[in-house]
C-alpha cells in the first residue's frame, strides 16, 4: 500500500494522488454460508465513473462494499477471489483494512456528518481522527481545498465552526464528499449518494461527480437508471434470478451502449422495464 507521506506545503495529504484502477477477479462474497455475490470479474477504469445498477437485493451494494472491505463490519462475511488496486491485493493477509479504506473512500446514502464536530472539523475528520500532525495553516489549506472541490466552500466559508448537522441535506452530502476527498483517496465509492436528496441537490451532486472524476476513480451504486445514464461512463448491470440466489454481474459496458443497444436481452429487459 502506498504510504501516506508527510504533508507538503500545498497542504495535500499524500504524494501521487493519481486515480487508480481496480481489478476484480472471480470475486465471491459470502455471508456465513450464504453466497451473496458470485464470480464477478471486472475492471474499474481510472478517472471514470462506473455505475452499478440492478434491482434491490441483487448484490450491488454488497459488491461495492467489498471493494474497500467495508462488508467486513458485518461479522461472518468473507470473500474468495481477488480485488487489486493498481496491482496491490487489498485482501492480502498482510493488508490492513484500515489502510485500504484510507485509499478507497466511501460516501453513503444518508448524509452522516459527525454531529459533535464543526464543518471544519468534519472536513478534516479523516486527518484529525487519525491524529495526523499538521500545522494549522496546512490543515486550513486541506479543508479549503476539499470544500472547494465539493462545491461547498462559498456556502460555508463564513461558518466553518458551526456544527456540521446544521446544513441542508444536499449540503450535508457535499460535506461528506469533502470529508472523503480531504484524505485524497485513489478511489471514491458512492452508495446511492442521491437517494435521500431532492432533485436540485441531486443535480448538484451529479455535477460534482462529473468534476471529481478528473481526479478520482469513482464507482457509484444507484437505483435510478436515469442517473446512471446521465452521470456515468461505464455501467454494470447486476441481477439475481430469484430471491435466495447469488447476485451476478450480467453485463458491463459503456453507458451509451448499455442504454442504447445492450448486448444481452436480460440487460435490455431490465433497462426498458420489461420483465417476464
Amino acid at each position: 500500500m502506498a504510504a501516506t507521506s508527510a504533508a507538503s506545503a500545498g497542504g495535500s495529504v499524500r504524494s501521487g494522488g493519481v486515480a487508480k484502477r481496480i481489478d476484480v477477479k472471480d470475486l465471491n462474497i459470502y455471508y456465513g454460508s450464504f453466497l451473496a455475490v458470485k464470480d464477478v470479474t471486472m475492471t474499474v477504469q481510472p478517472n471514470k465513473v462506473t455505475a452499478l445498477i440492478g434491482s434491490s437485493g441483487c448484490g450491488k451494494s454488497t459488491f461495492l462494499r467489498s471493494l474497500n472491505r467495508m462488508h467486513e463490519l458485518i461479522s461472518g462475511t468473507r470473500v474468495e477471489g481477488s480485488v487489486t488496486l493498481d496491482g496491490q491485493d487489498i485482501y492480502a493477509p498482510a493488508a490492513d483494512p484500515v489502510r485500504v479504506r484510507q485509499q478507497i473512500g466511501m460516501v453513503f446514502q444518508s448524509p452522516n456528518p459527525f454531529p459533535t464536530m464543526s464543518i471544519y472539523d468534519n472536513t478534516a475528520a479523516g486527518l484529525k481522527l487519525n491524529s495526523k500532525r499538521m500545522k494549522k495553516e496546512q490543515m486550513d489549506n486541506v479543508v479549503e481545498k476539499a470544500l472547494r472541490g465539493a462545491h461547498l466552500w462559498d456556502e460555508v466559508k463564513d461558518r466553518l465552526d458551526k456544527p456540521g448537522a446544521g446544513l441542508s441535506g444536499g449540503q450535508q452530502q457535499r460535506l461528506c464528499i469533502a470529508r472523503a476527498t480531504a484524505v485524497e483517496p485513489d478511489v471514491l465509492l458512492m452508495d446511492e449518494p442521491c437517494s435521500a436528496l431532492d432533485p436540485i441537490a441531486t443535480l448538484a451532486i451529479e455535477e460534482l461527480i462529473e468534476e471529481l472524476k478528473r481526479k478520482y476513480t469513482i464507482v457509484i451504486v444507484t437505483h435510478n437508471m436515469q442517473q446512471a445514464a446521465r452521470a456515468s461512463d461505464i455501467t454494470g448491470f447486476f441481477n439475481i434470478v430469484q430471491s435466495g440466489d447469488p447476485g451476478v454481474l450480467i453485463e458491463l459496458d459503456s453507458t451509451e451502449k448499455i442504454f442504447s443497444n445492450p448486448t444481452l436481452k436480460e440487460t435490455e429487459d431490465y433497462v426498458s422495464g420489461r420483465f417476464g
Partner: protein
Amino acid sequence: MADNPMPPMASEPPTPGTGPAEDFASGGSRIPAWGPWAVIAGTALVLAGFLSLIGFNIALLAVGTVLVSIFIVYLWARKAEGRRQGFDRAITLGIGSLFALAMVPLVSLLYTVVSEGLSRMDPEFFSSSMRNVIGEGGGVLHAAVGTLIITGLATIAAVPIGIMAAVYLHEYGKGRLKRWLTFFVDVMTGIPSIVAGLFAFALFALIFGPGIRLGVMGSVALTVLMIPIVVRSTEEMLRVVPDGLREASFALGVSKWRTVAKVVLPTAMAGIVTGVMLAIARVIGETAPLLITTGAFSSVNLNPFDGRMANLPVFTYTQYKFPGVPPEPFIERAWGAALVLIIIVMVLFLAARLVSRRYGIELRK
C-alpha cells in the same frame, strides 16, 4: 379535556360555503372547557355534604366523586357531542383520576418532608456537625460532607468501569463472552442493596477484621450498585448513536478504537453524563449498605480510609431510631436530613435535564 376540532354550534343556520364541513359535524353543541371541572366540583360538594351527615370519609368522597363525575360527563358529552366523544371524555376523566391517584403518594411525601424539615433549615444546621451536641442544635454538615465523599468515590470508581464495560459490550463484544457478561450485568442490577453492603463488609472484614468501619467501604458497596446502572444506561446511549456515524468513520480509514473514542463516545456523551447523574441520584440515598459499612459518626471526617464516616441516610435513621429525651430535636434533625437528601436528588435530576438539553444531540430522527 380532549380537544375535538369541530365546527361551531349547529343551532346556527348553515351559512353558504359551510356545506362540506357539515359532513364532518357530528351535530350537537360542544361541552365548554370548564364543563367537566364544574361537574367534578359540583359532585364533590354534593357528596361532601352528604357524607358530612353520615360520617365524613375522604376516600369515599374521592372515589364517589370520580365515579359519579365520570358517569355524568359521559351522559352530558354523549348528548351534546355524540357517543364517541362521550366515551372519549369519560375515559379521559378516568385516566386523569388514576394519574391523580398515582400522584397522591408523591405529593403527600414531598409535602410531609418539606413541612417537617423546614423547621431546621437554618444556618446552624448546615454549618455544624453533631460533635458535642446532646439535645438541641447540631447540624448535618458531617453527614452531608460524608455523603458527598462516599458517593463521589463510588462515582469515580463506577463510572470508568461502567462505561468501559458498556463500550466493550456494545462495540466489541460478540458471541459467548458477550452473552455471559450481559447476563452478569443483568444479575447485578437486581442485587439488593443490603447484599452489596454485606459484600463490602465481608471484603474488608477479611482483611481488617469484623469491627472495621470505613467511609470507603460504603463507597465500595455503592460502586457495586452503581456499575450495572451505568452500564445499562451507557449501553442504551451507545445504541442510540446511529451506525451511519461509525460507518462514516471506518470509511475514512479510522481504526475501531479511535472511532469509539473520538466519534461514538463524544456523540453519546451528553446521554452518558445524564445516565451517570441519574445513577448517582439512585444510590445516594441507600441506607442499608451504609449502615453496616460506614457506621455513624458525630464529627466531620474527611478521610474515607480512616474510621467511621457520617452520611445523610444513616444520620436520618439514627436520629429517628435513637432519639434522646426529649425526642423532638432528634426527630427534627431527622426530617431536616431527609429534606437535604431530597433536595440533593432534585438538584441532580435538574442538572441531568439541563445537560441533556444543552449538550444533547438530537439523534433519534
